[in-house]
């Protein structure tokens, strides 16, 4: 049962003693105090002082507060960094509550990994902490183009009180950046167009863990909103970082990086190769949408919802090659 994954740290190579000391050996998922937005998913301590909530492979609904991404926080000697803000104000508030239940250290940084609402609409919940909001240099313009549109949709689903406002980055990463939380440094990399045009990845010096955000989807089908060719290129950039384990934007809270990235690049590579072949043979787009990439159908959650759109995106991009 996914909600109890937290108990299997031993199997993941992370010692469980620290976690037991922190939480008194209680399974967080079963604590009645957990917010509804967690949807029964608790926080996993995926590394020393690194807590991540697994987002379910679902769409935003009135019942789940758009709490569908893997969000969490990292505790340093001096302060706390929020790895992803959450999918709504309600989700962000839930996360802030989880942080405050564990530490009184100031929340100094909130990472906005890219423009999609399931990752950045929780930011408002942290505004009172006056953190540095870290984002890709292209995030501001992307939020300008889409932020209000996303908010409108989110308000329709969750209501105005729970949706959250658009929050802009206050530290815009042009290429790379480094943050020191005390005892650990976090290194950021602003990627070229891939999943979106504003993907920011992060590496923690203390654990060696990579946080590729939505540049790495696991179990949930990737959604293509930037550049297919670019994503495959940025996958190589991430591989070159040499991380053994990663916290993906969707899927389990901690994965072995190489095989997870191999699954993703297999999907994207299949999409690219089959689309190029279809274009070379003058296949109409509607036939492409209905027939390409079907070998991936049973390998991803929400395939039927997203795959056709991914083919459309791929077709639009590659027909101009």
């Amino acid at each position, binding site marked *: 049962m996914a909600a109890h994954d937290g108990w299997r740290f031993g199997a993941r190579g992370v010692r469980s003693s620290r976690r037991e000391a922190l939480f008194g050996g209680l399974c967080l998922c079963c604590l009645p105090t957990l917010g509804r937005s967690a949807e029964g998913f608790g926080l996993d301590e995926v590394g020393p002082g690194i807590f991540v909530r697994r987002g379910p492979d679902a*769409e*935003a*609904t009135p019942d789940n507060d758009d709490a569908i991404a893997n969000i969490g926080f990292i505790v340093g000697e001096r302060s706390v960094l929020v790895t992803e803000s959450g999918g709504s104000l309600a989700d962000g508030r839930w996360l802030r509550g989880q942080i405050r239940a564990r530490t009184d250290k100031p929340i100094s940084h909130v990472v906005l990994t890219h*423009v*999609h*609402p*399931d990752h950045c609409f929780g930011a408002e919940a942290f505004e009172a902490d006056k953190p540095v909001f870290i984002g890709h240099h*292209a995030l501001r*313009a*992307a*939020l*300008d*183009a*889409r*932020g*209000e*549109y*996303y908010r*409108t*949709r*989110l308000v*329709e*689903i969750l209501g105005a009180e729970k949706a959250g406002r*658009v929050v802009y980055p206050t530290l815009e990463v042009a290429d790379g950046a480094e943050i020191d939380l005390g005892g650990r440094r976090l290194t950021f990399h602003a990627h070229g167009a891939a999943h*979106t*045009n*504003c993907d920011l990845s992060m590496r923690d010096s203390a654990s060696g863990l990579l946080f590729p955000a939505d540049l790495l989807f696991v179990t949930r089908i990737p*959604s*293509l*909103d930037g550049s297919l060719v670019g994503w495959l290129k940025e996958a190589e950039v991430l591989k070159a970082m040499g991380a053994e384990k990663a916290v993906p934007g969707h899927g389990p809270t901690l994965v072995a990086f190489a095989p997870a990235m191999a699954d993703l690049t297999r999907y994207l590579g299949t999409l690219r190769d089959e689309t190029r072949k279809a274009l070379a043979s*003058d296949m*109409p*787009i*509607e036939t492409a*949408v209905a027939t390409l990439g079907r070998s991936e159908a049973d390998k991803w959650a929400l395939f039927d*919802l*997203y795959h*056709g*759109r*991914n083919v*459309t*995106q791929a077709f*639009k991009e590659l*027909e*101009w090659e």
Partner: protein
Amino acid sequence: MKPFTAALALSLAASLPAAALFAGPAAAAGASDTDAERLARWQEIRTSIFGDKTVEPTETLVAVEAPVRALDAALVPITLTMPEKDKVAGVSLIIDDNPSPYAANITFGPAADPGEIKLRVRVNNYTNVHAVVRMKDGRLFETTKFVKASGGCSAPMGMSDEEAMKGMGDMRMKFSGEPAPGKSTEATLMIRHPNFSGMQMNQVTRDYTPARYIQKVVVAQGGRNILTLDGDISIASNPVINFAFLPEGKAPVTVVASDNQDGRWEHSFPVPAPSN
């Protein structure tokens, strides 16, 4: 015209297909309209376009092919087929519940093979899509198809307007099939153009990006017209049109495209030589 204003206001209740984020149970505008309401809307639109001319229903003279549920409301592929092609003068595509329903009007010239034409459109609501074929004898025939989609006209199309306008006016044409004298050749015309609908908001200025769309495309070979397309905001960004024509001689295919803001682009494409 009342129904169109209503559609405009409802257009914000929309999902963004490009980003594929809110695919959930869409509270789609127009989803609950009754058949009678849809019929009344069509009658109003039909009169505004065709006046009091009779538009007869047909099951054979024109067919419209579209996905029942659009995966991407900002790019819905449409195929129009006209089996009795020698009698066809032109065809119109009307998306009843779009803010500007008259999506495209195509007039075929002497060099056309009007058997089939494909376009990509935006669909803003659950809507009937009508195809009306004009025969050479002046009679009009229509058929309809119901498409479920929402938000295609108002969805932000990229991350910025500047990005969307890159390379505006660039064109490509692909020919397929073995060219042979007297046989028709299939062609795909691609035009780089954002086709801004006027309903996509720019958050910096808190204003809508002004509508800027391809209004007219004239395709010809050696002075013989293949087709003339009058377009509107319902045509998807970076328009792609698939058609067939009857090549004659070695003259290139010429395309002249113009938009509603005095943009004008002209390109010509060499026709593949016949194999015999």
